[in-house]
């Protein structure tokens, strides 16, 4: 039994509390800036927070609700977050999408600076949840949800470059590469949701992901640029889980992808300028960046002989070792191939070749692939065939001038498809392929690619209208 009476006990408790509070008050005191900018010795925690950029405000926008929840939960943030993660998985398994989304929102209130959660749940919504839905506009809605979620992540974590990069990646890949790209690219600029109509019956973009109504690759480009800027600022959370040299190629790759769509859409006026911009970005921006390879040796992808010598000196290695390091990374990033492709695409010859194939396709799919009589009893070859022959000639010239680019990949596929069209025109006019024709050499040398070309041809021509 204590010999103290009630008042004494209370006083002793009070004294104990004060004793314990003193160091906390001392450590947690706000830092005070003196006139010359040096912080005083008071506010140690505050100083450290500033020093390591760990304050809420320096990490990103402060969400009062997040702070309130963490305060209310006292020390139970961990168990609460774990429980919510389990709930989220359960909601996903049970396909309770509304509850999943709400639970994910609750998780980020508790763990707003846990980058992996933003990355994982952003991916989960845009990729896993979206594919669970059947109709393409529903899928697009969930892709947007994933992107918006990641965007929110960037606002709350402004010093994490990978989140900015992921937004760009999602926009680029979902709109440009996914199975539903045909629809998603269209919806990105003309959202099927009636809330985003610019005028009655005129669809517009969702301002949350595409405020200026741009092409998806250009929007992705802007996000990649932001990501690189954050990386330059040397964010608190650096780039993790991705090789730096790949991380930094985002903007240039987005421009290359954007340029690639110009000819596909028949926008030939924009073709050369777009490729020119992409080439310059690849060579002058990305190519001139400094990266660190094995053993922290610096290299530059677009290096001149002088650059190699300078960098070798800087790295303290021989020029030959520097050249080897450089060559390895050129191969790894496919730098030369993209350089050559961009360079070729921005030429007038390539523009003409693409135009002629485009015209040939239009003619064939427009039903202008049948031979016609000229009124004097002579049979004239079809318009499609004329375009095809012109195109084949142009592509053959390009193939001869750039043999490396035509050994495999898109250019080879394009040539094979061209011949496939040519074959189809002959077949529908009851003729077989002539003994010689431009691109024959390529056609014969790539027997295995012929079936793929036929498949692509069938997909492309499925909806053609026969006159």
């Amino acid at each position: 039994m204590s010999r103290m009476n009630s008042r004494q006990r209370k006083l002793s408790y009070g004294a104990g509390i004060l004793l314990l509070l003193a160091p906390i008050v001392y450590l947690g005191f706000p830092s005070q800036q003196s006139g010359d900018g040096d912080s005083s010795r008071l506010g140690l925690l505050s100083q450290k927070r500033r020093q390591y950029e760990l304050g809420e405000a320096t990490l990103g926008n402060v969400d009062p609700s997040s702070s309130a929840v963490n305060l209310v939960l006292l020390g139970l943030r961990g168990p609460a977050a774990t429980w919510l993660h389990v709930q989220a998985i359960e909601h996903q398994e049970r396909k309770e999408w509304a509850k999943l989304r709400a639970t994910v929102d609750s998780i980020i209130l508790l763990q707003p600076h846990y980058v992996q959660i933003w990355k994982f749940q952003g991916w989960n919504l845009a990729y896993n949840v979206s594919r669970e839905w059947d109709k393409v506009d529903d899928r697009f809605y969930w892709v947007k949800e994933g992107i918006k979620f990641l965007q929110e992540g960037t606002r709350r974590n402004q010093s994490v470059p990978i989140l900015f990069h992921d937004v760009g990646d999602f926009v680029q890949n979902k709109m440009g590469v996914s199975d539903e790209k045909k629809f998603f690219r269209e919806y990105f600029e003309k959202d099927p949701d009636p809330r985003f109509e610019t005028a009655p019956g005129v669809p517009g973009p969702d301002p949350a992901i595409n405020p200026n109504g741009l092409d998806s690759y250009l929007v992705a480009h802007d996000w990649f640029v932001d990501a690189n800027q954050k990386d330059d600022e040397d964010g608190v959370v650096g780039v993790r889980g991705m090789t730096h040299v790949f991380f930094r190629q985002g903007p240039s790759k987005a421009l290359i992808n954007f340029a690639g769509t110009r000819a596909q859409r028949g926008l030939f006026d924009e073709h050369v300028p777009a490729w020119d911009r992409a080439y310059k970005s690849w060579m002058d921006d990305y190519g001139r960046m400094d990266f660190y390879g094995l053993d922290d040796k610096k290299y530059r992808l677009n290096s001149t002989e002088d650059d190699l010598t300078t960098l070798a000196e800087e790295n303290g290695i021989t020029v030959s070792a520097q050249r080897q390091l450089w060559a390895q990374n050129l191969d790894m990033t496919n730098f030369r191939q993209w350089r050559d492709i961009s360079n070729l695409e921005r030429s007038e010859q390539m523009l003409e070749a693409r135009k002629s194939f485009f015209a040939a396709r239009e003619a064939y799919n427009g039903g202008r692939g049948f031979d016609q009589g000229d009124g004097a009893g002579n049979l004239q070859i079809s318009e499609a065939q004329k375009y095809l022959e012109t195109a084949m000639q142009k592509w053959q010239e390009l193939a001869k001038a750039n043999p490396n680019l035509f050994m495999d990949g898109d250019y080879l596929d394009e040539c094979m498809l061209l011949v496939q069209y040519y074959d189809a025109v002959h077949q529908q006019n009851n003729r077989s392929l002539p003994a010689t024709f431009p691109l024959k050499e390529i056609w014969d040398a790539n027997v295995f690619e012929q079936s793929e070309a036929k498949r692509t041809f069938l997909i492309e021509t499925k909806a053609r209208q026969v006159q």
Partner: protein
Amino acid sequence: MDFDIRPYDFVSALRGWLLLSAGLAVISLALALVLSVARNGAAGLRIFTEGLKSYFRDTVTLSSRRILAVARLALLEAVRRKALMVFVVFAVLLMFAGWFIADANERPELQVQVHVAFLLKSIAWLMLPAVIFLSCWAVPEDIRLRSLHTVVTKPVRRVEIVLGRILGLAVVFLAVLLAMGVIGQLWLSRRIPESARAALQCRVPVFGNLYFLNAEGQPAETGINVGDVYAYRSHIQGNSRARGVFLFPKFDESALTINAEGAQELLLECRFEAFRTVKGSEKSVKEGIQAQYTLMSNPREEAFGIFAQSETLRPTAEAFRNAEFRNASDLLKGLAERIRKAPQELRPADYVALHNGLLNAGEQLQRRKDERLTEVSTKFLDGAGVCFPIPKMMADQDAGLRVEIPWENLAKAVDEVAASVLQRSADLLEALPRLEVPLPAFSVAEYHGGDDASVNVTRIPRILRFVAGDESLARFLADVTTEWNAAGKLVENAAIRATLVSDLVAQAKISQLNAERLVVVVLGEELAAGKLSIAGGKLSPPEGTSWFVFYRDLISLQRLVSEDSEGWIIEKDLVKDLSKDGYLRVEVACVDDQMYLGMARPDLFVRKADRPFWVGYWKALVGMGAMLLLMVVVGVTVSCVVKSNVALFFSMAFLIVGLLHDFIIRKLMELEKGMGTFESAVLLMQDRNPEVGMDVSSTTLKVVQTADKSLDGVLWVFSRIVPDFGVFSKATRYVENRFDVPLVDVVLPALAVLGGFFIPCALIAGALLKFRELESK
């Protein structure tokens, strides 16, 4: 909706309750007697009897005035104890709720779901602690502070104190719940964004029962699992004979709604899931997978489809389905012969299917209350009776027991069924009509439900006009002919009535071309050929033939091919014709090849006229109120015998077991993953996973597992005593999904559970308080 509601079985619940209450009463009395004798010796029996009499007197002479006085006291005390502080927390929560759930989803129906779920959960979880604390604290505190002593000195019975306490607390908490409900209603109606308010609705669903037909068209309990972790829905294969068959029992006119034009229509709403094995066409990608409903009246399938459970009996089932009764009779005869000659060739499963088929057919035919079918239904039931013990006997025989199986009796019974079917084939044909109305295919909008009146909702007019199949056409023409013949509308002056074509067009609603074909070409020709005759102003079918058979033969001879390019379009009434057996059968098919359609029982329902959202909301609050009152009853009861902290602990345990009831049952049935407490602890300590198990000796293993089993036993006992709190929260899930809460299946069971606990708990608490020594704290 992703949950399934089964009807609550009140009768078996009442039976169980009576049994348990009686058992509890006997045990309590026996225990009291033993204790009394042990404490008082020979006088124990007298004291026990007197105590029992006194308690009985107390119980039957309750005074409402005294109860109300105690209740008032409890009420004032609750207010004094700041029970209403819960409001402050509630208000604060609602004020800041927007922070947490704002913009969780842009879609209206998802927004409603999130807001409603948040509100109802908040109310429940804010009130539960207050309820448990106050109900567990009340009586023990009275005893501790001796305020109870002043009450018991007055002429108030102890059981009245208990009832007064329960009533007082109930009034307080129901008032708080009511106020929270009103505040919640205001909050919801203001908080939900303008765009989503239209989704605040209370759909009134009528659910049916679901079974499947597999890709070969044979009945199956489930469809295909496409690999979902949560095996809630089963899938049917597209472009095959696979169907999801929904049967809506007790279907009548009340299920119909009135549309904007004032006409009656049936609303079918679905929430199917789609699964693709290929991307599909561009149209399909944009619009979704196509499904198709077929409304059916198919008594032959209902009666004989079960035979198809067995591969051996499948041809018999097919013959019955196709109304080939003579063929079915022959097949049954062949079966009888096989049973006679080589009964062991058939597997026990075949005899099970034979029994099920005979029994189901007999019952279904009997249910139709058609005198013509009485004899044949009796034969089916007799056959089922003979067949019933056969599979068990075969199993016994296989186990080495000497059993004489009455194969001859079975063969004879099957023979008699075959003979009866043959004899009554014409009656069976007449009495078991099949009517099939295929509706246009529609696109399934996956995971959308009720957010838009046009999405996933099919409106079916009461009067259906559709292209008739062969049997439907033959029956339609036979019905018209019979009816009009009886009314003398077919014949005039010993010839077919001159205006018959126009009459058919006007009254039977068939097209001019088809009416001409029927009257001029077919009837005229048949009459001229002498196949039909006119006598006494009536048209007669060929001798020994019914009109149905007459028309069916004409159709099979291609004599009634439609002249109209649209086919034979006829009219049928949804209620009178398609559900005249008292139920509606809807078959769902997936139209697209290589696609699958997933469904569960609640995924297709008849949607009656919507009610205001608040009807369902308040019903959910009634369910919640029942849960709170149950906790009051339990808390007050326990606190009559133990101290407040123990009562608190008990009530919390009661609540947790109730909430986890479903999980506990699944755990006890070993349907949940994971192991027992001790085994898990050992695994944790050994840093091993469940797959490899514990690294211990066999003795330790046995000890650990026995310890876990004993804990399971404790859980089992608790799960028997504590009700499943799911009964109270079911209503919430309905409202979240914007459905009306069914009164009989959801609200009444919650009230029944409350009543089931209230009566014994009040009696027990009264007895405990009466016989306890108040001075012992």
